């Protein structure tokens, strides 16, 4: 079943000649992703890891790409996203960090208008072991299996996925929502997909303090999800009002605390792990 993308999805990289674009297009190829082209204005005719480079997205649409990974500097992200949406690409993943959230809001609602998925910004992307990877998650930690993971964090996701894999289980789909104030996808988007995906039997939700997305996710799970769900919340120890790197981790006005999120999950029948490492055991 297709969860945003599958093994047939063709992927392009906007900004493929940059440091990140070069490295991760290569890693995606190694993972088995069909990376069919890339763009970098003024560099058409070159190739990166054997992938042909074009000036504009409109120049490579004959390759029928399904998805794009955008890796350009923050001031150019909005244009790149609109370029992809204008060309009709339906999955837009933004790798770039530090995109102004006002830009992301605009991109998000225009993506929705056009029936496109937005992933990121500032998240590790989506990985479907044995099928496809779009983004920057390390290739080595995955194993095909039936656990789906949705996470607001990057490295912490790898930690948890690695633990699941080492424990002998495997993953169906892993989605990094990103840590920005306005993520392209939220937990409910991911949970709907996981709930409908027949290859997914168990679900891990990796949240953070700040906002009320975890609380809403808990409510959604209580109402709709009959698969086993386990959660982890980072930031239990964060002192109120101190910034923790992610704007998403500002504790404001008494909402969005770790306590509130843990309570919401437990009331929805979702066990919450104390340590990331506990998750595999709780899934068994």
């Amino acid at each position: 079943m297709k969860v945003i993308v599958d093994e047939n999805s063709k992927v392009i990289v906007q900004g493929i000649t940059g440091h990140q674009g070069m490295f991760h297009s290569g890693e995606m190829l190694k993972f088995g992703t069909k990376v069919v082209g890339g763009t970098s204005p003024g560099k058409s005719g070159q190739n990166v890891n054997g992938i042909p480079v074009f000036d504009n997205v409109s120049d490579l649409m004959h390759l029928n790409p399904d998805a794009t990974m955008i890796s350009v500097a923050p001031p150019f992200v909005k244009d790149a996203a609109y370029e992809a949406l204008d060309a009709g690409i339906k999955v837009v993943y933004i790798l770039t960090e530090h995109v102004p959230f006002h830009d992301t809001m605009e991109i998000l609602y225009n993506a929705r208008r056009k029936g496109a998925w937005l992933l990121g910004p500032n998240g590790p992307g989506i990985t479907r072991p044995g099928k496809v990877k779009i983004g920057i998650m390390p290739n080595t930690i995955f194993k095909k299996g039936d656990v789906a993971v949705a996470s607001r964090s990057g490295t912490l996701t790898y930690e948890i996925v690695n633990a699941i894999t080492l424990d002998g289980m495997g993953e169906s789909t892993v989605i990094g929502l990103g840590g920005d104030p306005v993520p392209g996808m939220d937990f409910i988007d991911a949970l709907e997909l996981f709930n409908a995906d027949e290859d997914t039997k168990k679900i891990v939700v990796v949240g953070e303090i700040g906002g009320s997305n975890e609380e809403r996710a808990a409510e959604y799970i209580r109402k709709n999800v009959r698969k086993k769900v386990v959660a982890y919340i980072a930031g239990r120890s964060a002192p109120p009002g101190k910034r923790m790197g992610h704007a998403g981790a500002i504790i404001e006005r008494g909402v969005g605390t770790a306590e509130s999120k843990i309570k919401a999950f437990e009331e929805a029948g979702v066990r919450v792990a104390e340590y990331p490492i506990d998750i595999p055991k709780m899934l068994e």
Partner: protein
Amino acid sequence: MNLYEYQGKEIFRKFQIPVPDGYVVSSPSEVKSYTSPVVVKSQVLIGGRGKSGGIKFAKDQATLGNAVKELLGSKVRGLTVSKLLIEQMLDIRKEFYLSITLNRTERKPMLIASVAGGVEIESVPETEIFRKSIDPIVGYSDFIGRQLTKFMKFDAQLAKQLRAILPKLYQVFEKYDCELVEINPLVLNGDGKLIAADSKVIIDSDSLYRHQEFPKEDPERTPLELEAQSKGYSFVELEGVIGVIANGAGLTMATLDALLLHKGKPRNFLDLGGTDSTDIVVEAFDLVLKANPKVILVNIFGGVTKCDTVAAGIVEAKKKYGIKQQLVVRLSGVRETEGREILKQNGIVAFSEMMPAVEKVVSFAGGA
């Protein structure tokens, strides 16, 4: 980034949101001749200025001069006052609350207002708060103002004024990439006019490249945090003794959480980010060492940041800074074997799992 009250009010003035007449001084010599009652407001980025003596009133030249001398250079809730805003005194009849902020759950701007302004919005009962999400593609439209003025039970005269302010407030929110633009209190003055008696404007730091007119200041941060920020690190000073270097905000938070659950007390939050360079690691040690921790924990899950790079950085930092503290390292993920080998050659044994590393560093720190 927080703007000072006077910066926010300059923006308001530019967008024709009414603000009191006033001017900024940073030395007593800049004070103009007294003509009418004024309020002298310390420009510090912290709430509760009034209660902490940071705001004074003057009804003649002498008290004005004294107020300025007294406030300039004083401390308000720990922050040094270097600028004052001297403004016409208002004849306050009523105080309202008005703001636009990002509603992160709905991923939309939200207009918040209340007839009960001037106090903390948190303590106002829900029923007295107007909340309205704004479609960011459509933007502000007058029907929202009509809904609000009805909620506020404003008469036609007040409603008209508020409906003139609202689109401009939304423009400020958009044009300045705001996380928050707040008027508290919005004052009904003796002359029947609405006027912004205070301003709180927070600009999304990620957008500062297009708002370079504002110097980057953030007095809520410690000098070390500011240094780290200028070098591009997410770094927060905490009260404990265990220095922490990790990669990724989530993993770093999870590391602190694990330390605390084991009764260890972290000295800091430091997220290496996703850049793969030994220099970044060495500089991170410099920052953490300046915080003078008792022990140091490095917790890396290699991805973009590769384990061997971090290992090389650790070795280099040890050499460069002659680190005395006990150092506990955990390496896992991309190039783990290579990284562990580098450390081993330099006498450091790295854990591959997080929990044993956490336990070890807490025991070194004398906790648990």
